[in-house]
């Protein structure tokens, strides 16, 4: 028998601190698989954000800069321009990318920076205890919307993939999910493409991952996976919004 599934080499062999059933663990592994696949371990510089994925540097076996909250695309711009031969990615939550860091992501994308952005949308500020994020679904109960998000006063869940795909500076923009094996296998292909647009010097690549946060959703991991399929995907459709798989 030969080994058909193993831990990627770029994923440090330590336990994750994430809650049971948290999709950050899956997305971290997919990033490490891509780093292995394209042989990028010695030339990758990651830029971590603030949120439950703040310990990226403990898990991915590459150099990582920790950016202030929301500023990862600005920090990554500096890193990539100073070291254009390195592979540079950011890994950001929805509170980070779509709230405090909205300006940074929009302008990095609009400038067409040669970056790969991994965006983990779990519809809440996970790390700080489940406050409403711009991505929170209409009606969703959070600690700051105890009666559910009211769109007339709290606005609508923001669709970052669609929004960024409108910018002429972007090259590849997609949305994926990892709640079922089928969606996960598709997600791998989309993330590879977001890596390739940088390794082939074509431009800005972005993948939004719809992700479960069972803890702040107050659900079992199984219920949380169902919620991704039943509530999130109908509003945040999966697919490619800019570019194509070759």
């Amino acid at each position, binding site marked *: *028998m030969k080994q*058909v*599934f193993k831990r990627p080499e770029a994923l440090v062999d330590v336990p*994750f601190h994430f809650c*049971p059933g*948290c999709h950050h*663990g899956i997305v971290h592994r997919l990033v490490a698989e891509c780093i292995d696949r394209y042989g990028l371990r010695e030339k990758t510089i990651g830029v971590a954000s603030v949120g439950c994925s703040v310990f990226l540097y403990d898990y991915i076996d590459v150099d990582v800069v920790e950016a202030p909250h929301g500023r990862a695309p600005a920090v990554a711009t500096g890193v990539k321009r100073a070291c254009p031969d390195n592979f540079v990615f950011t890994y950001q939550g929805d509170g980070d990318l779509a709230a405090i860091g909205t300006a940074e992501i929009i302008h990095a994308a609009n400038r067409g920076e040669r970056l790969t952005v991994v965006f983990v949308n779990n519809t809440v500020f996970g790390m700080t205890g489940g406050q409403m994020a711009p991505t929170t679904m209409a009606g969703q109960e959070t600690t700051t919307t105890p009666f559910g998000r009211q769109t007339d006063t709290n606005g609508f869940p923001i669709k970052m993939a669609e929004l960024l795909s409108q910018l002429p500076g972007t090259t590849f923009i997609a949305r994926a999910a990892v709640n*079922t*094996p089928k969606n996960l296998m598709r997600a791998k292909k989309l993330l590879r493409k977001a890596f390739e647009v940088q390794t082939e010097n074509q431009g800005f690549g972005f993948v939004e991952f719809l992700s479960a946060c069972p803890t702040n959703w107050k659900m079992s*991991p199984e219920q949380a996976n169902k919620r991704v399929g039943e509530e999130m995907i109908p509003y945040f459709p999966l697919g490619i919004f800019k570019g194509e798989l070759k």
Partner: protein
Amino acid sequence: MAAIEFIEERCKGCGLCVIACPKELLKVSSHLNRAGYPVSTIEDMDACTGCALCAEMCPDVVITVFK
């Protein structure tokens, strides 16, 4: 012939491998690891096809697959 292995101490009992297995071979048992989580186990290894979907879905990279 196929086989899977668990790094039991890394398992958090989330059950995502259980819902991923197309042959419904896995279950979260009542056995606890040192962290206090109930761990996933396979009932009938002979029926495993080595498809690796359980390992793909595991957020904690607990499962390795041989085929």
